[in-house]
């Protein structure tokens, strides 16, 4: 048999360095690490809250410490990137038709950002109330 | 040698081959079907067809209309019994395609829409935007996956029909990936290998359209019928030969010369109405339009470009919305390959070799003169297209006669008496192996494959193009038989067994030379002008002598013997072909 198809090896852990679009993808996926860590932080805060004022204040101090602030900043950046990527793909996942015609993706994405703004303002306002 | 045994074997998995396979599978699920193709089915050139497929559907249309358009369009060289059968089956086959999922374009009420096409009296061309062939092919391919009895052999290059005691006993093919010669032992065989446009240098046809099946049948003893009739399509893109569909004229596109003048009115195709008038001007038949170009060129009224002379196809007045809805592919192709956006500028176009009306001689049941051997699609000639095919008849043809070939071959396989004499058949099949071994073994090749192919292309264009003369054809015939001889001296530079395309090109060249010889010789001997066959030395149609099919019989020296058979006429006596305002 003269056939001998050659199978090129796949770089299992570094494949994503090959192309900018893969790097962008991995950046999006890595947002989950920050979302995860920050949700854990919130949960820790809730547990601390349940444990009493001393525990809770120590927790707050940690959040306001320099490393806590750096962590929050990083998370904020990745959270916004998550929002950006998530909105960007919604027209694909949930296309909307009206009268047989597709509604332009940019309109759907724009509407999402609009809701995002309103939601953010409400949250900021409610917390301060 | 590997032997694969089956009931029905089909060579070619384009529209015709796939339709035939499904037809066999539906007629009897017990029959084993082998579907062989030198490329994956969805690569077959049916994929390139853009415009549409003809079938009577509108209330104001009638079978008589379709019959008459086809017969007159074919300059009365069509067999009228075949045309009758064809037009009646056409809407049924197209409806069947709809049932199988073909995304035909629709009218607002949800019924199938039709568009006008060249040489047709009423709109009857079903279309799926401007990707009709693509959708037909993929629908057929995907539907074929439903049938477990259809076993595909993709990328097998078929080379020779095996005939024992005058009966077809299968064929040989080379598995491209291993280089192994395989004998397909079959009770009946259908050839559906498509056309042979690649015989010419400037063509809309893909690289695979090299007439292999025609040559196989021809060498096995089936005549090639009406090979002198080769269609030029009036609107190909200069340089690449990419087709701009007739649908673009059906939608209202205009052809103008270098002065912006709609020159077709000078060739009995007027009046130049601003709207698309059926069977007139831009909607005249292809042969007339291509010939008009030639005359304009003689008069110096075409536009000179680096890729030869062109005229302009103007779609601008249709507007962006209509172009995008009906002709998206035209816009895309023009933008990419000639850098012209038809919304803003006219598209440069010129006539280009498009279709082989002639082919493997079959009867109305798609059967050849060799028992057990059938043919359908562009490789065959049942004679519905006569001397000039009407646009959108061939996609329908490959469905109608593909289906017919399938049921005929199925019946034949079931009724076939007596086992195939395997040792005799194997002996025949081994000839292919030997021929191939000799090709591989040749050390000193004095001819190159691309070189010889180019010489063939050039002589076919110069001698057997839009207009022909005794001298030009004689020169081409002489040149072709010289090329036939010299082809014995080609060899392979690639000696690998695996996916050897050098070998495939050698075999394709071999087939094309046979086909070209049949074309040139048949043309030389037809001393009249009819449809796409136009002779400057015999300008009139001569029904007395040539209301006949030409039949070219194989001869190894490249000079086939050509004889004739009467055309079947049922209800339409030959008359003058009139287009334009004069028709009414």
């Amino acid at each position, binding site marked *: 048999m*003269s056939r001998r198809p050659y199978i090129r090896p796949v770089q299992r852990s570094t494949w994503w360095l090959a192309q900018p679009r893969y790097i962008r993808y991995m950046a999006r*996926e890595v947002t989950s690490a920050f979302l995860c860590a920050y949700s854990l932080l919130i949960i820790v805060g809730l547990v601390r809250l349940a444990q009493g004022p001393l525990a809770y204040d120590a927790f707050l101090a940690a959040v306001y410490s320099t490393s806590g602030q750096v962590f929050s900043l990083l998370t904020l950046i990745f959270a916004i990137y998550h929002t950006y990527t998530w909105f960007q793909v919604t027209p694909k996942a949930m296309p909307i038709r009206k009268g047989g015609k597709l509604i332009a993706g940019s309109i759907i994405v724009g509407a999402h950002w609009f809701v995002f703004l309103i939601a953010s303002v409400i949250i900021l306002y409610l917390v301060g109330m | 040698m590997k032997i694969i045994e089956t009931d029905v074997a089909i060579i070619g998995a384009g529209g015709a081959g796939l339709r035939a396979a499904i037809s066999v599978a539906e007629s009897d699920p017990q029959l084993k079907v082998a579907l062989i193709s030198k490329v*994956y089915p969805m690569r077959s050139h049916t994929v390139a067809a853009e415009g549409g497929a003809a079938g009577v559907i509108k209330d104001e249309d009638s079978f008589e209309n379709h019959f008459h358009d086809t017969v007159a369009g074919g300059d009365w060289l069509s067999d009228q019994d075949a045309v009758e059968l064809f037009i009646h089956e056409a809407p049924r086959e197209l409806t069947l395609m709809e049932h199988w*999922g073909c995304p035909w374009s*629709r009218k607002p009420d949800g019924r199938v829409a039709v568009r006008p096409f060249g040489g047709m009296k009423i709109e009857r061309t079903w279309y799926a935007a401007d990707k009709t062939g693509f959708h037909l092919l993929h629908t057929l391919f995907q*539907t074929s996956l439903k049938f477990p009895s259809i076993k595909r052999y993709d990328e097998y290059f078929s080379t020779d029909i095996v005939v024992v005691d005058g009966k077809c006993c299968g064929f040989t093919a080379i598995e491209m*990936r291993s280089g192994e010669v395989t004998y397909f032992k079959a009770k009946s065989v259908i050839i559906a290998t498509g056309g042979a446009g690649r015989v010419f240098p400037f063509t809309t046809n893909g*690289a695979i359209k090299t007439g292999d099946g025609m040559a196989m049948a021809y060498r096995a003893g089936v005549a090639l019928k009406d090979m002198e009739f080769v269609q030029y399509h009036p609107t190909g893109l200069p340089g690449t030969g990419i087709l701009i569909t007739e649908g673009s004229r059906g939608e209202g596109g205009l052809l103008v010369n270098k002065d912006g003048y709609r020159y077709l009115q000078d060739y009995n195709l007027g009046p130049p109405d601003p709207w698309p008038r059926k069977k007139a001007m831009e909607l005249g038949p292809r042969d007339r339009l291509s010939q008009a170009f030639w005359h304009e060129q003689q008069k110096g009224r075409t536009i000179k470009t680096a890729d030869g002379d062109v005229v302009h196809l103007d779609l601008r007045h249709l507007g962006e919305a209509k172009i995008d809805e009906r002709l998206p592919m035209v816009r895309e192709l023009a933008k990419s390959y000639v850098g012209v956006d038809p919304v803003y500028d006219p598209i440069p176009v010129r006539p280009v070799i498009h279709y082989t009306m002639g082919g493997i001689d079959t009867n109305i049941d798609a059967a050849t003169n060799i028992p057990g051997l059938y043919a359908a699609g562009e490789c065959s000639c049942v004679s519905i297209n006569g001397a000039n095919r009407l646009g959108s008849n061939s996609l329908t043809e490959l469905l109608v006669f593909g289906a017919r070939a399938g049921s005929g071959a199925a019946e034949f396989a079931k009724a076939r008496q007596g086992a195939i004499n395997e040792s005799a058949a194997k002996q025949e099949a081994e000839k292919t192996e030997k021929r191939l071994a000799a090709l591989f073994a040749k050390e000193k090749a004095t001819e190159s494959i691309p070189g010889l192919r180019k010489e063939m292309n050039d002589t076919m264009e110069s001698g057997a193009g839009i207009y022909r003369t005794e001298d030009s054809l004689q020169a081409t015939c002489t040149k072709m038989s010289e090329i036939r001889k010299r082809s014995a001296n080609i060899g392979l530079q690639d000696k690998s067994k695996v*996916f050897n395309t050098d070998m495939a090109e050698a075999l394709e060249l071999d087939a094309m030379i046979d086909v070209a010889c049949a074309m040139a010789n048949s043309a030389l001997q037809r001393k009249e002008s009819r449809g796409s066959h136009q002779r400057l030395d015999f300008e009139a149609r001569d029904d007395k002598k040539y209301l006949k099919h030409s039949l070219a019989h194989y001869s190894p020296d490249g000079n086939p013997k050509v004889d004739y058979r009467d055309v079947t006429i049922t209800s339409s006596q030959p008359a003058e072909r009139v287009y334009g305002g004069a028709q009414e």
Partner: protein
Amino acid sequence: MSRDTVQLEILRYDPEKDSEPYFSTYEVPFNDDWVVLDAINYVKENLDRTLTYRWSCHMAVCGSCGMVINGEPVLSCHTFMRDYGDKIRIEPLQNFPVERDLVVVIDDFVEKLGSVKPYIVPKVEKTVDEGEYIQSPAQLAVFKQYTACINCLLCYSACPQVGLNPGFVGPAALALAHRYNLDSRDVGRAAREDVVASNPGIWECSFVGACSEVCPKSVDPAAAIQQTKIASTVDYFTDFLTPWRKQ
């Protein structure tokens, strides 16, 4: 910039001679109107008869000439030399075994394509004499885009999950399943779910989106897959909450 020649670096592999692939360089004339396939054909006709690749239509519709050019999967008949520099690097499609030179083995894909039952399962059987099924232009528009796939496999080459998970049914096949699921004439969705909604089906896709970025026919398989995920998830929960409805 005007140039006379361009260098093509083409990946070569002949299983009968080579233990592994290597690059060969060819110098070809530069031509403003040429697509890369024209340059490759030039090599085959004039420089090296052993160069092996697939092509047919030269008009971006048969899907046979997919290659990786300068790292990006493209149709070589629809990619212009004028858009590249003086060196063009040409490799076979990623994620497929290399049969020889630029020809890859696609059996596995063809198998997967068939596995999603890509044909109409009719709602009501109609005979030909009863005419066509009625389908409004709006109903057609819902799935039209997903019928445009030419099986060129650029998406399989671009999708990292195809490379990392050989069992993955992959973008084009899943988009085709979606095409039939959305067709108003079809009721085969439940039957397709066996493959489509299995682990190697839609769930192997992590929405990289590369498939849609490289698709020459704007099929947008990424969208098809995400929509299928949503529909399958809804199905799953409906089946779970209303077990009596299951046949």
